[in-house]
C-alpha cells in the first residue's frame, strides 16, 4: 500500500477530516528519513467500524529544522509515537505538550535512525553518571499560545516538591526494565511519568544493515513471549513482497505454533499477574504447565523460549512424527488445569476485590490509545487481527473472539484465561488435518525485495504486531519498522491510573501485560 503525501500546510486539516470520517485507530506512526528528499512520517490509520485502511505521509524539506504539526490531540497514542520519532529523527512536533526523548538518554548526541547519524563511540560513550534528575526538556516553546499552556498543564511533568517514587527500572513488578516516576499523595497516585529505553537495543537501525534472513533472528528477541508470531509477521511480509506462496503444510504448522505460543504467553501472564498480586503458588502452577509447551517447542524447533522456527518460505525444520500426539495430549491436560487456576486464584475473594472495577479503560480510550490485544478486547473493542485481517488459516478455523465490556483489570485477566481455551480449540481443529507436503519452499540464496513499501500484521500474544518495510531493492531494508504491542498500553497508563493507588498500579501493570523489549525494541 502506498501512502498519499499531504502538504504540510493542509496536514492538520486533513487529519482532522480523516478522524471525523471515522478513522479512529492510529495503527502505527512510522518516522522516515528519505535522504535528500527530507524527513517525514507515515501515518497508518484504520476505521474500526468498517475496517478500511489508509496510509498518509508527510514530508518536511528541511533536515535540520524539521517540524510537523502534532496529532496527539486527535489520536492519544500519537503522544508517545511522536516522542519516539523526535528521539530517532529529531523531527519536532509542533504543539506537542511534552517533547522529550522517549528512549535515549537526554544527553544523547544525534538522532540514531537518521541516515547521516554518526555512530562513533566518541560522541556517545557509555556514560556512567546518572541522568540529570530534571528530565523534562522542551526543545522549543511557544508560550504565548493559550492552547499550549493548557496542554502543558496536563502533561506528566512532575514537580520536585511532590512525593516522588521510582518504580523501576529494577523492580520486580515492572516485568523488565521500565521506569515509572510516580508523584504520590499518600498511597494515591497523582501523576505518572513513564521512562522507556532501558532495553532499547536499536533493532530497527541494526536491521538496515542486515540481510532479511539475519533480521529474522532479531524478531524473536523483541517480544520473546510471542516469538513465533513476530517472526511469522516478518516472514509473511517478506513472502508477500517477493511473491512466494507458502505451502498448506507450512500454514498449518505456523498457525498451530502461533496458538501454542499464545497459550504459553497467557500462562506466563497468569503467573506474573498472580505473583504481582502476591499469590506465589499460582505463579508456580502457571510455570509448571508452561514447561509442557516448552517441551513441545524444544522437540520441534530446538529452542525453548526463542525458537527461530519460521523462515522465509516456510519453517526451519519439519515437525516431528509424534508432534500431533503430544499436542493433543497437552491440550487435554491444559483444559483440566484452567479450572485449577480459577479455583486457586481467579475466584478468590481477594483477587476479585483487587481487580474488579480497578483500572478501567473505556472503549473510546482503548481505540484512541490503540490498545490492541487482550487489553483492548477487555474494553469491548473487537480488535483481533485474526478476525479483522485474517492471515494463515484463521479464516478457515472456527473460533470466538473473546470480548468483555468493563475494561477493568478483572476483565483483562479473564480475556486471557478464555483465550487459552479458544487457542486450544483452534489447535484441536487443525492438529489432525495437517496435510502432507513440503514444509518449506525454495528461496533464492540472497533475498532482495523489490522497491516499494510493504506491511503485514499478525495478532501477537498481546496485541497487533505489525511490520513495515520500505525497500529500495537492496538485500537489506531501507527502513524497517515494527509496531510495538506494548507502547500503546503504557501510553494509556496515565489515563487508566486516575485515582489509583500504588498497589493498583501493580495490578494494572500486570493485567495490561506488556513486555518491555517489545516496547523499547
Amino acid at each position: 500500500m502506498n501512502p498519499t503525501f499531504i502538504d504540510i500546510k493542509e496536514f492538520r486539516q486533513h487529519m482532522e477530516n480523516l478522524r471525523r470520517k471515522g478513522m479512529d485507530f492510529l495503527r502505527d506512526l512510522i518516522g522516515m528519513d528519505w535522504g535528500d528528499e527530507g524527513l517525514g512520517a507515515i501515518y497508518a490509520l484504520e476505521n474500526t467500524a468498517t475496517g478500511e485502511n489508509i496510509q498518509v505521509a508527510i514530508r518536511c524539506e528541511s533536515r535540520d529544522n524539521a517540524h510537523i504539526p502534532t496529532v496527539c490531540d486527535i489520536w492519544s497514542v500519537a503522544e508517545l509515537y511522536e516522542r519516539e520519532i523526535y528521539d530517532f529523527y529529531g523531527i519536532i512536533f509542533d504543539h506537542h505538550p511534552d517533547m522529550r526523548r522517549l528512549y535515549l538518554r537526554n544527553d544523547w548526541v544525534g538522532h540514531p535512525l537518521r541516515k547521516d547519524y554518526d555512530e562513533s563511540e566518541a560522541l556517545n560513550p557509555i556514560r556512567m553518571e546518572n541522568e540529570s534528575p530534571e528530565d523534562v526538556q522542551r526543545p522549543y516553546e511557544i508560550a504565548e499560545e493559550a492552547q499550549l499552556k493548557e496542554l502543558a498543564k496536563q502533561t506528566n511533568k512532575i514537580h520536585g516538591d511532590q512525593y516522588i517514587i521510582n518504580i523501576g527500572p529494577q523492580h520486580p513488578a515492572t516485568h523488565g526494565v521500565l521506569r515509572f516516576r510516580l508523584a504520590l499523595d499518600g498511597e494515591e497516585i497523582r501523576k505518572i511519568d513513564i521512562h522507556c529505553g532501558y532495553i532499547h537495543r536499536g533493532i530497527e537501525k541494526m536491521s538496515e544493515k542486515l540481510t532479511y534472513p539475519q533480521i529474522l533472528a532479531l524478531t524473536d528477541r523483541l517480544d520473546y513471549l510471542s516469538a513465533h508470531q513476530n517472526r511469522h509477521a516478518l516472514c509473511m511480509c517478506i513472502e508477500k513482497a517477493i511473491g512466494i506462496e507458502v505451502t498448506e503444510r507450512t500454514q498449518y504448522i505456523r498457525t498451530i505454533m502461533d496458538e501454542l505460543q499464545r497459550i504459553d504467553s497467557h500462562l506466563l501472564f497468569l503467573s506474573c499477574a498472580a505473583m504481582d498480586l502476591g499469590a506465589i503458588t499460582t505463579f508456580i502452577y502457571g510455570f509448571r504447565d508452561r514447561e509442557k509447551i516448552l517441551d513441545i517447542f524444544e522437540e520441534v524447533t530446538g529452542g525453548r523460549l526463542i525458537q527461530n522456527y519460521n523462515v522465509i518460505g516456510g519453517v526451519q525444520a519439519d515437525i516431528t512424527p509424534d508432534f500431533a500426539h503430544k499436542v493433543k495430549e497437552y491440550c487435554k491436560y491444559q483444559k483440566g488445569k484452567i479450572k485449577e487456576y480459577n479455583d486457586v486464584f481467579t475466584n478468590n475473594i481477594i483477587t476479585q476485590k483487587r481487580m474488579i472495577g480497578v483500572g478501567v479503560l473505556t472503549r473510546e480510550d482503548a481505540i484512541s490509545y490503540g490498545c490492541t490485544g487482550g487489553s483492548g478486547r477487555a474494553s469491548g473493542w473487537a480488535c483481533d487481527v485474526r478476525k479483522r485481517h485474517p492471515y494463515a488459516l484463521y479464516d478457515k478455523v472456527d473460533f470466538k473472539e473473546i470480548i468483555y465490556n468493563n475494561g477493568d483489570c478483572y476483565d483483562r485477566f479473564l480475556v486471557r484465561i478464555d483465550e487459552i481455551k479458544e487457542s486450544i480449540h483452534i489447535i484441536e481443529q487443525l492438529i489432525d488435518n495437517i496435510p502432507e507436503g513440503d514444509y518449506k519452499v525454495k528461496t533464492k540464496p540472497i533475498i532482495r525485495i523489490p522497491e516499494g513499501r510493504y506491511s503485514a500484521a499478525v495478532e501477537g500474544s498481546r496485541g497487533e504486531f505489525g511490520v513495515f518495510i520500505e525497500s529500495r531493492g537492496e538485500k537489506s531494508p531501507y527502513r524497517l519498522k515494527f509496531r510495538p504491542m506494548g507502547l500503546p498500553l503504557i501510553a494509556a497508563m496515565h489515563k487508566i491510573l486516575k485515582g489509583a493507588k500504588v498497589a493498583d498500579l501493580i495490578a494494572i501493570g500486570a493485567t495490561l501485560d506488556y513486555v518491555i523489549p517489545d516496547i523499547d525494541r
Partner: protein
Amino acid sequence: MKKPAIKSIPYEEFKDNETLESLIAELNKERTNVLVSKLDDLINWGRSNSLWSLTFATSCCGIEFMAVGAARYDFARFGFEVTRNSPRQADLIMVAGTITHKMAPVLKRLYDQMAEPKYVVAVGGCAISGGPFKGSYHVLNGVDKIIPVDVYIPGCPPRPEAMLYGMMQLQRKVKVENFFGDKNRKHSRKEMQDSPIIVTNVPDSLNEKKNQQ
C-alpha cells in the same frame, strides 16, 4: 590442592577446572594457619549454599531465570531459595539480558548497593558480549566492562540446566575464597569510605545538595 566439592557431581566432571585451580593458587600464595582456614571453610560452606540472587532481569534470559525458580527446575534445592528484591540483601546479581547504554549506570549502581560478599553472573550472550545486538549503537558489549563478572553462562537464552551449572560453578568459586584478610572484597574498605553509595529514592533535592558538596 583444595578441591571444592559439590554434592553428587565429582570434581572432574566440571569443565574449566583450570581457571578455578589458577584462582586457588593465586589465593593461597600466602600460607594461612589451620584454624583460620578451617573457619574459612565453614564460612564458605555457609556462603556457597546460600546464594540469594537479586531479581534482576532485563529481557529474555529473565524469563528463563524465572523458569529456573519454578516447579520443574527449582533452584531452591541448592539453597538459592530466596530471590531478594532489594540489592542490600542479595548476594549475587544475575545479569540476565541485554544491558544498554541507559541501563549501564543503573546496573552499576545496583552493584554498588549490594553488600559484600557479592558476585556477578553474566547470563546469556547479551550480558557476555552484546550477543546478537553487538553492533547496535545503544548496547553495552559485555557487562564485564562495568562490573567484575564471576561466572559467564553462555546461551541465547541459556537453558535452565545451564543456569544451574553456572550457579554450581559459582558455588565452587565461593568455596575456595578467603574471608579473612579482605582478599576477596570487591570494593576495598577505603574505597567504600571515599565514595559512599548514593541512596535511591531520596528526594531529588537531597541528591542535588550532595552533588554540590
